[in-house]
């Protein structure tokens, strides 16, 4: 099957829950288990939180979420037009954090819970994080 949906949010912490629920609802078109849906929710929460805290530094901005299903694969793009990441390698290190009381685990959670993720970023232009996941049950059938 194919399907797509698009969501634009103001960069506000009140919208993180909405982003999670929207992506979880969209994801349930595929045969994900409840546990897998929970993992997707964590990944979305981390990515949207990063946009609010790091990309826009808790100031005004817009976050876009592009969701797609292509056959058995869910793809989620989370796009911001904020300050961008100068050194992507550095932010991929576990426990890398520029803020106190932030654990630097956001991207590590995304890496653990999604099958694949990649970051495209340009300084002062913005960042796009692309995350992909297939239901585990379907992977087993294919293998």
């Amino acid at each position, binding site marked *: 099957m194919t399907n797509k949906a698009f969501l634009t949010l103001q960069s506000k*912490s*009140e919208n*993180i829950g909405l982003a*999670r629920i929207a992506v979880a609802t969209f994801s349930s078109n595929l045969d994900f288990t409840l546990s897998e849906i929970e993992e997707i*929710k964590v990944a979305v929460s981390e990515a949207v*939180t990063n946009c*609010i805290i790091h990309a826009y530094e808790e100031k005004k901005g817009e976050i876009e979420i592009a969701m797609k299903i292509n056959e058995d694969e869910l793809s989620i793009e989370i796009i911001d037009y904020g300050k961008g990441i100068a050194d992507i390698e550095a932010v991929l290190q576990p426990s890398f954090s520029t803020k106190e009381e*932030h*654990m630097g*685990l956001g991207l590590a959670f995304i890496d653990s819970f999604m099958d694949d993720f990649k970051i495209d970023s340009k300084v002062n232009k913005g960042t796009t994080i692309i995350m992909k996941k297939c239901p585990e049950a379907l992977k087993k059938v294919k293998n």
Partner: protein
Amino acid sequence: MKINIENKDSHQSVILRLEGELDMNNASKFKSKIIKAFKKTNNKFLILNLKKVNFIDSTGLGVILGRYKVLSKKGGGILLVAMKNQVRKIFSLAGMLNIMEEFSSEKKALNEINKKEEIYHD
């Protein structure tokens, strides 16, 4: 997110019962409630009842770890109670179950503090 707080001075503890989802949207409220609860007492253990918590992410964990650092300096710590599987997975992946013990009930957590502190009641 709803927060219910009960002081258990007899066990040098604050019991905090959370309900809902813990993310960036309510992390500051959660943190200030804990700080306020401990300001009133000299307690050093936080019993965190997560039975009704459906969701937590790294921002929520960050607040809990921050409080753990403060309490462990006082010789106390954080005891986790009744986590759902999806919440436990997040704590585990972050390595936090290596430093915080988990209990199935508040009573068991209080008993553990009794053992730790050798507080005996008549």
